[in-house]
């Protein structure tokens, strides 16, 4: 490598060789062949380094070629995005409260064979020991007909306990919940909605009547805050949702809305 510009100086003083242009041209013409030979025959670390350089160069070259061809390409029709909104909604980030039951969804539901499909189809069977805690009663603590429910339950507002002497199933107040965090599956937004009741507990019909909420239970929730309206104009105020977590472990009820 020249250490100073003595080559340029000489060229300035004495001029270039008469065939410099041709020689340069021919050398440049040989470059692709030499590069190709290198690319094919190099081995080891040298090959790695060479390949890396070449990859970068090729990427750059492609970009430049594309840029040159730009004026030849016809103007691409910009992708017309989905979700057209009128002018008064354009600058607003609309937090989608919820969608209305669309005709299509309804039709889809009717056509599908599994009309009553739920997100969680099967639930692990729970033993009685897991669900209930035996409470001994009586003067000598020998009677063991009382049971305390270890899982989260829902009691309606008008609920009054049976007289403690006759109460077989005890629902601790600490495990009673009124609200559930319900997620709308399409909008992916979660709302805290009040519960209206337990529709079905997959474990057993007894648990349904008791109001026990475990994973997979179908609940009825009050959706009036979502502002849903049917096509006939009636306001929807309750919908079903299925529980997706273990409420007794988490301390809250998470559910997905069944649209």
């Amino acid at each position, binding site marked *: 490598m020249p250490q100073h510009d003595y080559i340029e100086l000489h060229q300035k003083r004495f001029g270039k060789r008469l065939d410099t242009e041709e020689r340069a041209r021919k050398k440049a013409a040989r470059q692709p062949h030499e590069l190709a030979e290198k690319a094919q025959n190099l081995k080891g670390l040298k090959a790695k380094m060479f390949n890396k350089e070449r990859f970068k160069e090729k990427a750059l070259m492609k970009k430049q070629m594309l840029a040159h061809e730009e004026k030849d390409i016809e103007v691409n029709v*910009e992708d017309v995005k989905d979700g*057209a*909104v009128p002018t*008064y909604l354009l600058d607003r980030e609309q937090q989608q409260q919820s969608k209305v039951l*669309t005709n299509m969804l309804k039709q889809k539901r009717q056509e599908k064979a599994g009309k009553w499909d739920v997100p969680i189809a099967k639930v692990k069977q729970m033993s009685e020991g897991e669900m209930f805690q035996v409470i001994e009663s009586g003067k000598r603590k020998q009677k063991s007909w009382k049971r305390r429910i270890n899982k989260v339950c829902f009691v309606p507002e008008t609920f009054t306990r049976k007289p403690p002497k006759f109460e077989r199933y005890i629902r601790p107040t600490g495990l009673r919940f009124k609200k559930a965090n319900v997620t709308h599956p399409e909008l992916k937004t979660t709302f805290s909605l009040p519960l209206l009741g337990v529709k079905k507990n997959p474990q057993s019909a007894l648990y349904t009547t008791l109001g026990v909420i475990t994973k997979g239970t179908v609940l009825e929730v009050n959706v009036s805050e979502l*502002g849903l309206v049917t*096509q006939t*104009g009636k306001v929807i105020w309750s919908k079903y949702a299925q529980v997706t977590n273990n409420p007794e472990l988490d301390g809250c009820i998470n559910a997905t809305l069944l649209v």
Partner: protein
Amino acid sequence: MDQTKKKIKTNTITLLPPDTRVFVTLFNPYGEEAQKSLELSVNTTKEELQQILQSLVKTEEDQVYTFFHNNIELVDTLNQLIASDPEYKLENTFSLTYHPQSLFRIQPITRQTAALEGHEQPVLCVQFRTHGDVLATGSGDTTIRLWDMLTETPIATLKGHRNWVLCLAWSPDCKYIASGSHDGQVCIWDVETNQLKGQPLIGHTKWVTSIAWQPMHLDEECTLVASSSKDGSVRIWSRTSLSCLISINAHQKAITKMLWGGQGYIYTASEDTTIGVWNKSGKRVQELKGHGHWVNSIALHTDYTLRCACFSEGNIEINRKQAKVLYDKMLSGKNERLVSASDDQTLMLWEYTSSKPKVRMTGHQQQVNHVQFSPDGRYIVSASFDKSLRIWDGYNGNWIATLRGHVGSVYQVSWSSDSRYMLSASKDSTLKLWSLQKKKLAFDLPGHADEVYAVDWAPIGGEKAGSGGKDRRVKIWRH
């Protein structure tokens, strides 16, 4: 027994004896005195009062009037009206305000007659041709579709835009449609051939927010059309030369709505909280400052008159001379009143002569999205995201009533041409018909499967209303 002093009690309404005479002062809708103390008998009926007024005001046509005292209407005789005001004393003059009444009655809309399919993306804007025989709808699928209202079938699909069609406007003579799209292009379509005139007009750098034609009485050939955009500029295009004549850099922020008023001024409502008043050479005449947040929508009290300029009931031909006559009558020597609705939950009433608002109307609890003057200019209705509509007096901005019923934000509202009914479109997928006289819900019109974005009631021959929304259907409604 002094007959004049004794009051006869009938059904807990105290009526004055029939031979009593009262002094009445007549006020015109603007609150100015039309006629000072007229001495009338208490048994004067509405018809007799009308004859008196007609001879006083000297109108040529058979103009029907209604009379009000403190917003209570005169139904039978003057006696009933006097009885309704407990504070009135015989010595004082009784004030009566008269309002011209529309001669025709529009039947309320009760049912859906057609659900027109065709658009592949949500329908964004809907406008009837002034005679109500053709409906133009613009959608997110970049096309405008024309539908024939007699048969409720499609006429044509106008293709030419490259992005969502955000706004469209029929020219005053309804021979052309100008439309603006999301990529800033404006297209002018010839409705007689259903073809695009020339090429799409390029100029705006961001999406077009509204389009307005120059009113017919200012230019009978309807050559000029203005478009406003998010880039803050207003461009005036010529229909004949298909070029941009003037570009006004009106605002720094987006222009949400633009109107071309009948007095020749262009009003632009912007997100920079001001409303600009411009003349068509680009010079700013006034800047209306007062709002605290984006101005979403504006309306002029002469809107309906400008729209129906050259058309009249029962006559399909264009009468270009009529436009000026009708407009002058609506203006009646004053300035155009402008009402603006803003994100700061208030509305303001303006006249272009002053940069301060005349009245500030508060009451809504969330952003006010759309505001419309009634066709006779007497009332203003505002639609808000707080799920309610409010009716205000069109002359002095007093609050009249709140209409509740929707369960989602109310997006748009449209009047019937006799100013008796309002149609509102909402996010909750329903349209609702409200009665102005009873100030409550008249009919509930569900049917859309998703949010309703646009609604329009046919201006002349107002039998039909059309609505379009996110469910891509255009629905036609009638009595």
